[in-house]
């Protein structure tokens, strides 16, 4: 009995916070646009079976007819992938340094990584507007030290989006890697070096594989929210930055077309869920093979 209760907790979590919202969105994606409150038909009000009988997938068909949508998905995937790699490149050395730091420093270092969360996300992204704009701090500083003669245009470009994503999600990358490296047994590296590995080779053959789980967790934590990101591209990105979050916004707000917006969201979810499930399966199989 106790065991059943314990197991049911994550399932209730999954049901209430994932499955039910997903079904609501899926239901809207099968309906038609209308000028009413709420702006779609049919609704559950006419009865469940009536609703089922009127289902059709025309909104999903519509998405395949216009190249805007797959281009936006692809461009979002590209931006999310590149920013995940950049975050890893920036985050790994930081996590590594933290894990190697003397014991008494670590709580402070950890605190410093978490500290930015104490300010609102929106304010931090707005701060980057002030830093990156043509008249901003960065350009003024670079002009002052004489590296550049003309202000660089960074704000309103994809570069600014990458900077924003890397900055915002960096702690999500650092923390899991740090916790993996923190638990790393130092004697394993000593053993590798005793057996003739150079320090670099020991890092590559021992440290990296042993922190793999941290790297994977960090990459997921960055990649998934970056894929659907809306705030960062709309504040820092240019008009030509095409991301699925912006397309969703346009469908929802400009076209008032909730059904098509929901269809876009359902597909976004599938793009995320399917690879993650496949990956998990693969991991499990590997773990089983090893034992």
């Amino acid at each position, binding site marked *: 009995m106790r065991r059943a209760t314990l197991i049911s907790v994550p399932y209730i979590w999954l049901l209430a916070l994932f499955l039910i919202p997903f079904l609501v969105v899926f239901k809207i994606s099968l309906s038609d646009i209308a*000028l009413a*409150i709420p702006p779609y038909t049919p609704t559950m009000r006419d009865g469940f079976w009536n609703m089922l009988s009127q289902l059709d997938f025309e909104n999903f068909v519509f998405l395949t007819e216009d190249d805007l949508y797959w281009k936006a998905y692809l461009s979002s995937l590209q931006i999310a992938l590149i920013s995940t790699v950049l975050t890893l490149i920036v985050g790994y050395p930081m996590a590594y340094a933290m894990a190697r730091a003397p014991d008494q420093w670590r709580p402070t270092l950890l605190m410093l990584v978490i500290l930015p969360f104490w300010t609102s996300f929106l304010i931090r992204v707005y701060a980057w507007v002030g830093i990156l*704009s*043509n008249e901003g701090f960065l350009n003024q500083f670079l002009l002052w030290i004489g590296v550049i003669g003309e202000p660089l245009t960074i704000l*309103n470009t994809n570069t600014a989006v990458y900077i924003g994503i890397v900055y915002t999600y960096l702690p999500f990358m650092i923390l899991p890697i740090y916790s993996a490296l923190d638990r790393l047994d130092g004697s394993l590296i000593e053993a590798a070096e005793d057996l003739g590995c150079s320090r670099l080779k020991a890092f590559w053959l021992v440290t990296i594989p042993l922190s793999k789980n941290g790297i994977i967790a960090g990459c997921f934590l960055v990649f998934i929210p970056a894929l659907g990101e809306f705030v960062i591209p709309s504040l820092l990105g240019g008009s*030509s930055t095409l991301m699925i979050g912006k397309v969703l916004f*346009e469908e929802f707000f*400009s*076209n008032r*077309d909730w059904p098509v917006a929901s269809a876009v969201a359902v597909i976004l979810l599938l793009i995320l869920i399917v690879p993650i499930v496949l990956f998990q399966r693969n991991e499990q199989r590997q773990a089983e093979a090893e034992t």
Partner: protein
Amino acid sequence: MKKLMLSTVAGLALTGAALAEEVRVYNWSDYIDEDLLTKFEEETGIDLIYDVFDSNEVLETKMLAGGSGYDVVVPSGTFLQRQIAAGAFQKLDQSKLTNSVNMWDVISERVAKYDPDNQYAINYMWGTTGIGVNVGKVQEILGEDAPVDSLALVFDPANMEKLQACGVHILDAPAELIPAALAYLGENPDAQDADTIKLAEPVLTNIAPYVQKFHSSEYINALANGDICVAVGWSGDILQARDRAAEAENGVEIEYYAPKEGALMWFDNMAIPVDAPNPDGAHKFLNFIMDAQNMAAASNYVYYANGNLASQEFLVEDVIGDVAIYPDATTLENLYTTTPYDAKTQRTVTRMWTKIKSGT
């Protein structure tokens, strides 16, 4: 027992409501003298909760979702018309709006195009969509005879190619830019048929690469700071930028021009959502706003013309005497209004706009 508790809770909630009556207002950003909000609270004893938005689309989505919790909202004309059709607003109780005698028939009649007989809304502010220019920078780039009073300034790629160096912002509002592009071409700006609307696409596509950003509120600060030198925006916003730059004494001089090819005249109107929690308080707020001195204070602060005739004697010369705000008869004749697109045309317009902005 449970029943008893429920009724006690309900009773408490009721007395709570009676103690602290609230009115929730959802208005455009930078669109009121904040002293007025305090004044309303002091005069009526009602708590005013004031939120802001910067696009009609965001407001409309909230209205169509229902249950927004707001008592007063401020949609523009075409959006007002569509939301009335969707059943989002309640009819105003004219008996509670004693100050409605102050309203200006010239404006009320034009708003009636969207809200027949002014049954659902009162006009708050109106203005034009035009061009804000950092005169010094633009003349430096395009020469003394830069076409600052013409849409050619932003719709002629030759000009835009040079202007991109100092920065150009354009409103992220297809329903205003497509009519402007049509006016530039000499077509009917209020065209509803897809063939005519498509004529606007090449005009906008050709200049899009030179536009730093399509955005509907950032240009106020960007113009005032000197980050950009040209913005297609709303009259009062650009005049606010002019004043902020003057106050900052940063050497930036901004001028507003209603283009000679014609400018869009728009109306922002206050309406009460059908499910407003406190319609009575909402009427009080509307009546407060229609008071001549209050309305004048708002206009004096935001540099937009209002639909209140009685307020005009309280307007400062900077506002009532500025043809960029209260246009003279000839300019007024040159202004056009638009009607809302139907759902299918709207999709064409949004799709076209995405294509213009992103190239896809």
